């Protein structure tokens, strides 16, 4: 029976890869002095070239193979140059000697086991890399070597950072989990835990959520979360920063960094492992850092997707548009639970609706009737978004026993982009949800399968609206 639990091999064209002509990343201009510590973080995401160092003959950790999958990922996705050094000399095209790649790469991914790593960390520094991702856990000895490398001006990510870094813009995939390359988008992810990070990326790939950059920090002997948050807050491709933390190492520094970033773009924090009083202290710290706290991976991505795609919500009043009454009631309940309120629609909206669709009674939730088609959705949404008494809208599209087609839901995103108010979609169920979700996944309106998730996303847009108002931006 056990074999049923074994992992299935991944189907080949499982993940969508952005098909573009390979393009060499721009070479960073040579400089005389060493780069400042802040600038050097860039080498983890936009290196001139990458070096993967491992030994194909020995595993770095008894249960985990890092080297080969990392090489595969880099060769498959990265549009820059990947140099491979295999100390076992088995991999085709790989060099056997670190001295031969001197000066060739800015970023090195170290996957060697403890023994050979002891000698080779120093050689990496001699090979003039600027940044090292230390994938395995590593024990004392190698850790000290890594710290010595940091003293010589090299930046180190990890150890225990096997999920490495990822950049959807240049295809950098310095990770050992095969094929996790989400599409391009505005969400950056920092994860202390490799497996939580992998789950977030897997989920982003599966649900077609766009990511800008990803980084796992592991045991952080050098580069920490605060520094990465600073870096990502300056990254033009990142609109939302998500941080998954297990333990906050330097609490005040972390809070300061999040706060600085949150004044520019939303920061979402996933923090587990604390209960009772400790949990409340984290709540307070995250609140004072002007960040938004979430409780699980799905909520993280749901909230981040809305923050990346939709405008902020500047008031508490929500309108619901639906072709089914039951789901509308569930959304209304969620609105109350989240401390938002049901908007009261204006006379003007009522008149415009009565003129065009006399059969629809203009109360919130606005029920369009089972026969509602794309045109009716579009017209109604336009009226409701123009209503000064409405700050945000939830649009429910039910497909079962209705003439509405999944593609009809696209009208929601088309109308929404004309206004500066947030709109989120709800398509409940299983297959129906996927159908609507897929129809809209490359558009700006996120679609959720539950009322709770949609309203939670709207609430995050409201919360960030309050934060921006508070910092005066």
């Amino acid at each position: 029976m056990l074999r049923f639990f074994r992992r299935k091999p991944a189907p080949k064209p499982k993940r969508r890869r952005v098909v573009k002509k390979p393009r060499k990343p721009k070479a960073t201009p040579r400089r005389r002095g060493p780069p400042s510590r802040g600038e050097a973080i860039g080498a983890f995401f936009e290196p001139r070239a990458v070096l993967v160092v491992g030994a194909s003959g020995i595993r770095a950790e008894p249960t985990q193979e890092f080297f080969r999958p990392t090489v595969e990922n880099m060769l498959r996705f990265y549009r820059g140059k990947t140099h491979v050094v295999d100390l076992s000399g088995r991999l085709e095209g790989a060099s056997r000697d670190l001295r031969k790649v001197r000066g060739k790469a800015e970023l090195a991914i170290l996957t060697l086991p403890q023994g050979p790593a002891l000698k080779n960390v120093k050689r990496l520094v001699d090979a003039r890399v600027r940044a090292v991702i230390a994938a395995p856990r590593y024990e004392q000895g190698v850790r000290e070597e890594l710290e010595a490398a940091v003293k010589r001006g090299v930046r180190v990510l990890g150890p225990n950072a096997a999920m490495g870094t990822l950049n959807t813009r240049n295809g950098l995939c310095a990770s050992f989990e095969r094929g996790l390359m989400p599409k391009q988008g505005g969400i950056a992810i920092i994860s202390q835990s490799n497996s939580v990070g992998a789950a977030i990326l897997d989920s982003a790939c599966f649900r077609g959520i766009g990511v800008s950059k990803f980084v796992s920090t592991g045991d952080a002997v050098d580069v920490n979360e605060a520094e990465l948050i600073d870096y990502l807050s300056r990254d033009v491709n990142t609109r939302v920063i998500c941080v998954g933390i297990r333990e906050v190492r330097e609490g005040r520094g972390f809070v300061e960094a999040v706060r600085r970033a949150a004044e520019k773009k939303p920061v979402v924090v996933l923090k587990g492992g604390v209960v009772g009083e400790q949990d409340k202290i984290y709540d307070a710290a995250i609140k004072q850092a002007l960040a938004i706290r979430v409780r699980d991976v799905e909520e993280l991505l749901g909230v981040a997707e809305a923050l990346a795609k939709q405008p902020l919500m500047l008031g508490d009043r929500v309108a619901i548009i639906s072709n089914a009454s039951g789901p509308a009631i569930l959304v209304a309940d969620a609105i109350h639970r989240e401390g938002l309120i049901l908007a009261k629609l204006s006379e003007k909206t009522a008149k415009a609706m009565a003129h065009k669709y006399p059969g629809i009674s203009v109360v919130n939730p606005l029920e369009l009737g089972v026969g509602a088609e794309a045109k009716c959705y579009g017209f109604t949404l336009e009226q409701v978004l123009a209503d000064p008494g409405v700050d945000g809208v939830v649009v429910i599209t039910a497909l079962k026993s209705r003439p509405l087609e999944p593609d009809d839901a696209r009208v929601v995103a088309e109308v929404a982009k004309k206004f500066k108010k947030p709109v989120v979609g709800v398509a409940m169920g299983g297959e129906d949800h996927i159908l609507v979700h897929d129809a809209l996944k490359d558009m700006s309106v996120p679609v959720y399968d539950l009322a709770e998730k949609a309203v939670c996303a709207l609430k995050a847009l409201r919360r960030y609206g309050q934060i921006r108002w508070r910092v005066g931006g």
Partner: protein
Amino acid sequence: MAAKKEIIELFASIRGQNRRELLEFEAKKVLSAWGVKTTRIELARDTNEAVKLAREIKYPVVLKIASPDIIHKSDARGVKVGLSSEIEVKQAFEEIVANVRAYKPDANILGVAVQEFIPPAREVIVGTLRDPSFGPVVMFGLGGIWVEVLKDVSFRLAPITKEDALEMVQEIRGYPVLAGTRGAPPADFEALADLLQRVGELAVEFPEISEIDLNPVFVFDEGKGVVAADARIILGEG
């Protein structure tokens, strides 16, 4: 910065006595120096001093044992309330000392503290603690079962702004009790926010303070202020 100097000296003298926990009258001295309103309390070493202090403070008064070896004063029958005459104060003094001697014969008794009596009002708890990752943290909760049973408390990293202070008051579930229900007037939120800010600043300014616990703090109606009726301050090790 006279206040700061006074507090530093007091802490040094406590450490000199090999103690980490301040006695109530000492803690209140620190708080008063820092601008936190507390019930007036003075140490009397004998009955004559007690009577003199009671007259100064004005009757009725409360007498409480002052001993570093007695943590729970009521358990040792070391508290007498509602004393309104010289005879009562003298009697109470003797009784308290006798009770504590019987409770713990080797207790080091510094004397008996004489404290002003305040008619009770809405009770809240204000405190600080030192979190291993975040440093000084301010805590707020409603007194009694709200904190003990329902764990209805809110936190903020110190120092806090007035806005933070008001938010932490509004955040607790028991907030309506303070906002005023069934015709009761609202509590003095301004004074409460000021107290929370000051306590936070105290914890930030003196890293050697590991814990402050004001329990209870009486919160009077709007415009009438707040007063810390009992106070504990514990210093960190070393």
